[in-house]
């Protein structure tokens, strides 16, 4: 086929596989059969009982075929990504050159809007990460969703999710990027609410969609603004084009003209707000912890491979715009950069404090995601472009691993709970109803019910440990260390040289957040896997045997390799001992990614633009020592508190005493959700009702009804007058007048339409008379 031979057109096919899989499953292979809703095997788990009703559940062959089509789609994407990566490696100077093709999508006056694909260094790193992580999630879902009555629909939706993410990755313009961005939003809405009968699930879905939409409408304004100034939305024509960047940085904005900001700054902040929503940064972070209501593979998708990564990826894509007009490597931040630095660093610390007090195994991970995204955002804010990209990739791997391992834990706990249940039924429990009720209250995600799982679920334990240590940034061996260290190194460099306040803030807050990350990760590992089982379910927790167990274990093992190895592509050249081993000539990752930014030769002519290609920060002992110390200190404290003295069943978390009154505040997320509910949600609902009751009914319609009433009343008045006239004058009146009166009375039958017709006719007559008299 032609398209396979054309390296420029090939990227079109990367999202095609999953998108096609979505269409095929939805339109053709998702077939259901009817089963009684009370049948636990067919329709169990997360679905309520419907007495005596038949419900559609996925047919067995449909389940198998749909799973295979979903897998085929994502495998095709993976293979084509690799082919594209190979093609990209054949380019002499990627960045200056890129694989690209486009077509006319929309006529706009004499010009046209082009839709296209682009493979540049930023795309390359995403093409390495996204397809692999997605494939792992797909494989994992085979087992995880094996008993769900709607598994075919699930595979259709995650295929669409993957397709949207890949569309966004290869997009060559902001609009196509936004298309992928929003479709992912919808997919996450549908998947968070996948078990849509559960109140918590659909509420979380609505919350996720609404919160991100707040940010998205602002982002849409930013896109419209950017388009109206530059006349294009193409990344190559804006982000690689110093002339366009310079004009944006020197144009006065259309609003907020009173402040001394540039159009680039306003557009930048609008676009960053989009990421604040998508990547769950304060104050729009509230949706992400609730998003774990969806099946666990979805959480992995949202937290690692797709959704939130897309937010940071958009910042990476648009970075040249944000930095235009400033020079972060000399301590001069533009408004968008400062905004990112402050929001990111603050969120990183805030979310880390909330993670410390959570008891739900997935909630801890959810807050850690928010916190880690804050790291990346702050890094971009201080100009640590490469470090942010690096952390994005390593984080995606270890977070996907952690979520799926946590999913295995939950699955194992549910399995254990079932086992205990069946066992108790075998014993002919005297209170079968009581037993069921107790079961429904059991929370398989609560870490206080776990403990000792390292014995029953060893593979999960070891892989979770690797992911957790990578998240904590265990020095040297884990990927998380290298990427976090680079962020701190960048911050320290500018802080040291220029005494930049923003860099100092970022350095301190991130170091604190890194310390807490190590602590709560160790707490989580200890509570889940350490000590002895704290419930019957935990004692019997396991994944069982066969396909389900295999498909849920394999992705963990593969991702565990990445969670360690991914760090070694970005070891600094001058790092003692390891530098010469892994980066003998240059830091491979840095060398590649920096090419996504405009060249110094091109930007030199424009005084408003910074040097986008600073050297990688030289080795400095302060940031390295800091990251080693905070990671080890956090892990050690966690080990001391939770692993060495494991929690007993029913025992209080030692942290509750240590933190005192602060603990409930952290556990309840600083009460931000309640605040939003009261300040935004309730008033909106009230206003919605008022608009109808007060404005539409009370004023506008009331006014119209008043007119109708006056017309009717006038009609009645004339009728009375007529009656009086006719009755009063009596027989003496000529017949003609009587006739006219009767005719008039017929007219005044009280129907408003008739009056209007009359008015209309009168108006026409008057109009014609006027016209004729004037013409004469």
């Amino acid at each position, binding site marked *: 086929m032609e398209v396979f031979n054309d390296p420029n057109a090939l990227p079109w096919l990367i999202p095609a596989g999953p998108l096609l899989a979505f269409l095929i499953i939805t339109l053709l292979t998702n077939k259901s059969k009817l089963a009684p809703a009370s049948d636990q095997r067919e329709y169990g788990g997360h679905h*309520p009982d*419907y007495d*005596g*009703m038949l*419900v*559609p559940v996925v047919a067995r062959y449909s389940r198998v075929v749909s799973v295979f089509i979903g897998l085929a789609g994502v495998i095709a994407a993976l293979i084509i990504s690799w082919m594209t990566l190979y093609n990209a490696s054949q380019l002499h100077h990627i960045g200056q050159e890129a694989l690209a093709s486009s077509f*006319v*999508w929309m*006529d*706009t*006056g*004499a*010009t046209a809007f082009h839709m296209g694909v682009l493979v540049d260094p930023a795309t390359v790193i995403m093409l390495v990460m996204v397809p692999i992580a997605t494939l792992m999630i797909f494989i994992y879902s085979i087992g995880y969703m094996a008993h769900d009555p709607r598994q075919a*629909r699930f595979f259709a939706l995650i295929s669409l999710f993957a397709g949207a993410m890949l569309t966004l990755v290869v997009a060559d313009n902001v609009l196509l990027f*936004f*298309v992928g961005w*929003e*479709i992912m939003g919808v997919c996450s*809405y*549908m998947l968070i609410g996948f078990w*849509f*009968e559960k*109140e918590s699930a*659909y509420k979380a879905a*609505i919350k996720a*969609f*609404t919160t991100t*939409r*707040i940010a998205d*409408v*602002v982002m*849409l*304004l930013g896109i*419209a603004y950017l*388009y*109206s100034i530059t006349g294009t939305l193409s990344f190559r024509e804006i982000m690689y084009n110093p002339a366009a960047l310079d004009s944006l940085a020197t144009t006065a904005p*259309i*609003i907020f003209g009173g402040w001394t900001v540039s159009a680039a700054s306003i557009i930048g902040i609008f676009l960053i707000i989009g990421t604040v929503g998508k990547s769950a940064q304060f104050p729009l972070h509230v949706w992400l912890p609730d998003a774990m209501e969806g099946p666990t593979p979805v959480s992995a998708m949202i937290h690692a491979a797709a959704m939130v990564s897309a937010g940071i990826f958009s910042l990476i894509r648009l970075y040249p715009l944000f930095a235009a007009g400033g020079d972060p490597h000399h301590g001069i931040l533009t408004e968008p950069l400062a905004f990112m630095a402050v929001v990111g660093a603050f969120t990183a610390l805030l979310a880390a404090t909330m993670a410390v007090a959570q008891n739900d195994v997935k909630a801890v991970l959810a807050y850690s995601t928010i916190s880690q995204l804050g790291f990346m955002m702050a890094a971009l804010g201080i100009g640590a472009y490469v470090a942010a990209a690096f952390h994005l990739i390593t984080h995606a791997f270890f977070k996907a691993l952690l979520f799926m391992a946590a999913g295995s834990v939950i699955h194992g706990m549910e399995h254990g709970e079932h086992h205990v249940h069946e066992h108790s039924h075998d014993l002919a429990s005297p209170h079968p109803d009581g037993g069921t009720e107790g079961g429904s209250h059991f929370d398989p995600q609560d870490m206080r019910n776990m403990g000792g799982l390292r014995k029953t679920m060893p593979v999960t334990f070891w892989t979770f440990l690797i992911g957790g240590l990578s998240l904590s940034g265990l020095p040297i061996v884990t990927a998380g260390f290298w990427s976090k260290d680079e962020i701190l190194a960048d911050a320290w460099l500018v802080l040291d040289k220029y005494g930049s306040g923003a860099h100092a803030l970022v350095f301190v807050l991130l170091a604190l957040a890194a310390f807490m990350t190590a602590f709560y990760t160790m707490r989580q590992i200890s509570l889940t896997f350490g000590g002895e089982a704290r419930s019957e379910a935990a004692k019997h927790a396991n994944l069982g045997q066969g396909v389900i167990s295999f498909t849920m274990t394999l992705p963990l093992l593969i991702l565990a390799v990445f969670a360690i190895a991914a760090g070694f592509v970005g070891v600094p050249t001058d790092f003692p001992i390891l530098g010469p081993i892994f980066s003998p000539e240059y830091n491979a990752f840095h060398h590649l990614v920096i090419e996504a930014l405009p060249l110094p030769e091109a930007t030199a002519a424009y005084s408003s633009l910074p040097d986008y290609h600073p050297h990688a920060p030289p080795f400095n002992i302060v940031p390295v020592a800091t990251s080693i110390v905070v990671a080890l200190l956090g892990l050690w404290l966690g080990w001391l508190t939770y692993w060495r003295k494991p929690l007993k069943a029913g025992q209080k978390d030692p942290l509750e005493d240590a933190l005192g009154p602060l603990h409930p505040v952290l556990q309840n997320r600083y009460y931000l959700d309640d605040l939003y509910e009261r300040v935004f949600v309730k008033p*909106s*609902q009230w*206003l*919605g*009702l*008022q*608009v*109808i009751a007060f*404005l*539409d009914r009370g004023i*506008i319609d009331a006014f*119209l009804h008043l007119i*109708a009433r006056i017309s009717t009343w006038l009609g009645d008045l004339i009728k009375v007058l007529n009656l009086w006239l006719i009755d009063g004058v009596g027989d003496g009146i000529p017949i003609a007048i009587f006739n006219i009166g009767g005719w008039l009375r017929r007219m005044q039958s009280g129907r408003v*339409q008739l009056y*209007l017709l009359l008015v209309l006719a009168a*108006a*026409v007559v008057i*109009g014609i008379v*006027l*016209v004729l008299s*004037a*013409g004469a």
Partner: protein
Amino acid sequence: MIDVFGIDALSVLVFGPALSAFIVASLASLAPSKQLGRWVALALSLLLALLSIKVFADYQVAGLAIGDEQFIVTQDSPWFEALGARWTLGIDGISAVMVLLTGILTPLAILASWNIEDRSNMHLALLLLFETGSMGVFVAMDLMVFFLFYELTLVPMYFLINQWGSLPKSGVKFSGRFYASTKFMIYSFGGTLGMLLATQLIGWSSGTYNMADLTATWPLFRQGEALLGIDVSAVKALAFAGFFVAFCIKVPIWPFHTWLPDAHGEAPTAGSMLLAGIMLKLGAYGFIRLVIPLFPEVWLAEVVIIGVNVATCFAILSVVGIVLGAFAAFGQSDIKRLVAYSSVNHMGFVGIGIAVLAQTYAQIWSGSDPNADVQTAILAANGTVLQMFNHGLSSAGMFLLAGALYHKTHTRELSDYGGLWVKAPVFGGILLFTSFASLGLPGLNGFVSEFLIVRGAWPVYTALTAIAMIGLLFTGGYILKGIRAVLHGPFNMRWRDYNLELTPAELLAIAPLLVLMLLTGVYPNWILPIINTTVSAIFAGLAS
């Protein structure tokens, strides 16, 4: 342009539906079978749909060839010579799009009313009669003919709501449909009163009703002089007001919208589909075709007290409609009224697009701002016309789905539904798709037009556009509220023994809408060049 058996295609599009209506209505007395009437109505409307597609395609070819000319006139013969009105039909890119929309929606409306048993032939005949009215409006090139067809659309719609509207709620003696149909009629009729006067005034003083000629002559007519003893600009302002109010009611622009939730809520499914899908477009079309080219200087006139010009004032009302329409939809507990208010919300974007077009057009026409950004106005106008088309698709789809649900459950209360996705997976999937198209999800049709309008409005009405985003946000709010109430949550056991899935006829009726929504979202250039050519020609004509 093609012809049908020697008759001009546009004339066939205008009279064909009326003739079909007559045939279908007379079948009622000839043949007792209702099924026959349905099939005949469907077949005839499908033929007309094919013809409208052919007209659209032909214009796409011909329109690109005529350069800066805007119209292709296919028919011009004496009609009402005493008045100087002529039977002139013609189309440009904007009417071609509307003709296509009308042609496609009518057979779908007939399919959606397949299950109506009560006087079914008459019901279908009225739908076809409505098609005549709207086709007439879209292809009329003569002001009198335009007015005639504009009023004609009211009659079938009034009877559809009045006779086939929803059943009375339990415990209420009278059905709301009587109130709704009367309100609809008075509102619309009262609104066109001034329009009739204005039409007469323009036609009498210019000696012609031809729209293309009037576009060139009427704005310049006796500038600075007196007419009927009054300053001509005051006369023109009054004439403007006549058109303005009539079209504002139809679009509807806030605060002229309160007829709409009642009419939509009570109308039968097919009635709502055509009402939202086509009838609202008549108003927007009137603005673009008549009010902007005929009264450029009035748009720039300052409104007393408020201190901004008329175009800006119109933009403000549109944005109020966007925001309050969204809030009102959010506050609804009745599914059809929720969808109805969504029209206020979506047509507000059409309104703001029209305001941008009007402002720029007037600035260039009057020379008050020769540097006015034509590119921005072209984008806004493209978006506006596309939004009219898109809203036609998605609102018709939404009403079809709401009607399908009402037909089976006989309730419109959102709280009576719940968890229906369990039993009706196909319905659920299609409802989600259509809802997200209505919400403006990128990748589906609504986004393209909304983006173009936002892009066009931003440099002209910056603050207003920003406020409109609140409306866009709450669009999400009410859409999700609707989905949640119908599909999510535990299944409401009241419907345990009901078949809630879409019937084959309903499925057939919505399928073309789904395809068009996706197609327009993925590749808008199947329809945009035809709009773009015409809009560009309007500005090119202005410059010369």
